[in-house]
């Protein structure tokens, strides 16, 4: 039982990161009907940004490991950098193809993904790089043999805060209302005087920033950064988004948590060899049993 609870905690930690990444997939899908396969690589770029920012902070003499403020600075900086990257990806790669067939867009997304990985390899090398310690680890909660570290608590807490902030943006602000309108009916939204291009840009910035936040949070626990580090989490978050019903924000959050827990449980009780296989198993099962996902209403296609 205690082991189970410990696994659950570990699963929720990964799950919150997947949830944050899944939000980007699901929002972009909701608005463009595009599976943005480059999203995992935006996560990777977010990790490098956080790495460099915390490196500069350390070099500048900031007591990085001793105050969560600096981790926060690194995270916000990485979010800004990834947001900018997301903005340019949409602007340069996807916007010119706005009226092209969907398949063209999908292939372009895969191209952008490979491009980002190669750029990262060229610029940062293929050797893993390691984060400085952002927050010194300590156990803040222990029940029996179940422990919760401060890092784990921060990952979960910050994810929850960001998810709530996103809810507020989507449901309580004018731009959020515009996002929902564009995703429901792009032309009708344009007739309201909404700049569809601006809403799409905003969506990419938001999703990319959340991916960078996830990358920084995960780095607290797993400090190694490589050019291909985005592939697996990207894939899992994508499946999480499908699991929750792609296009559905609550679904992405729930799907992320389920993915994280399922993965950790499989590794804990099964074999770590299945760790990455589980994602495909879940994907296939969802597509067979409930293609619209747990929370999805069928995606309505409009002419």
């Amino acid at each position: 039982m205690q082991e189970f609870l410990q696994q659950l905690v570990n699963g929720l930690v990964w799950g919150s990161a997947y949830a944050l990444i899944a939000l980007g997939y699901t929002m972009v899908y909701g608005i463009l009907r595009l599976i943005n396969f480059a999203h995992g690589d935006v996560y990777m770029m977010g990790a490098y940004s956080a790495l460099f920012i915390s490196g500069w902070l350390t070099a500048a003499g900031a007591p990085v490991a001793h105050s969560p403020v600096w981790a926060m600075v690194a995270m916000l900086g990485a979010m800004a950098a990834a947001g900018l990257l997301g903005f340019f990806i949409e602007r340069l790669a996807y916007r010119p193809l706005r009226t092209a067939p969907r398949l063209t867009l999908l292939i372009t997304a895969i191209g952008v993904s490979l491009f980002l990985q190669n750029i990262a390899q060229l610029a940062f090398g293929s050797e893993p790089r390691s984060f400085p310690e952002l927050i010194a680890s300590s156990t803040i909660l222990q029940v029996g043999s179940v422990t919760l570290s401060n890092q784990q608590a921060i990952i979960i807490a910050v994810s929850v805060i960001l998810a709530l902030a996103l809810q507020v943006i989507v449901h309580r602000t004018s731009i959020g209302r515009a996002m929902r309108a564009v995703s429901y009916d792009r032309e009708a939204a344009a007739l309201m005087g909404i700049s569809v291009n601006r809403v799409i840009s905003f969506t990419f910035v938001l999703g990319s920033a959340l991916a960078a936040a996830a990358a920084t949070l995960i780095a607290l626990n797993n400090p190694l950064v490589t050019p291909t580090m985005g592939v697996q989490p990207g894939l899992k978050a994508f499946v999480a988004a499908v699991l929750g019903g792609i296009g559905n924000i609550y679904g992405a959050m729930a799907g992320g948590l389920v993915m994280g827990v399922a993965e950790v449980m499989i590794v804990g009780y099964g074999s770590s060899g299945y760790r990455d296989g589980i994602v495909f198993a879940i994907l296939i099962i969802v597509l067979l049993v409930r293609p619209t996902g747990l929370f999805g209403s069928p995606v309505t296609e409009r002419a």
Partner: protein
Amino acid sequence: MLRINDLHVYYGAIYAVRGVTLEVGPSEIVTLIGSNGAGKSTILRTISGLQRPRSGSITLNGTELTRMEPDAIVRAGVCQVPEGRHVFANLTVRENLELGGYTLARPSDRQEAIERVLERFPRLRERLKQYAGTLSGGEQQMLAIGRALMARPRVLLLDEPSLGLAPQLVHDIFAIIREINQQGTAVLLVEQNAHMALGIAARGYVLETGSVVLADAAHNLLNNPEVRRAYLGE
């Protein structure tokens, strides 16, 4: 006020609008009638910037709208109630109205505009918190019109507002259109219900396969034997 000059619009190889010239004067109701596929919606979509013309020009009080983005055209004062209403079914009635007022700068302006629209459509007031998808067809049409009025357009484009509505509701909607017009909004009304449309319009254009074949005062069109035969079912 709104002036369309020699407009040509294609969908790929389909030549949908073939050199249309028409005009809507300030505080005038002008109707555009024609059978299915004549190109009426295409003209409205092109005015709103949803469709790019091959050539021709669209101006509002001399300002060129032709290459503007749809949102800029709304801000210039041209709003459209599209064919089939296209309310945001997954949003509440209030949210739909707020979206109609998207171009209004301040939330207080938006609130004021909502009040103004609710005065015209009291039935929407009881439904503010309901999802637009749960409204009846007539209520959705009222919402679609109310939403378009939020931004206080100078020209209102209406694409078949009577489509699929019971006769009594059609009557109500036309009365409302006339009222909106009397308060100073120019209206370009696309209709298949030629009788009703010509009844409230000052002038009308008859469109056939992308071209204007007749343009005249509404009462002349009502008495035109060809129009009576082709569009008034006589």
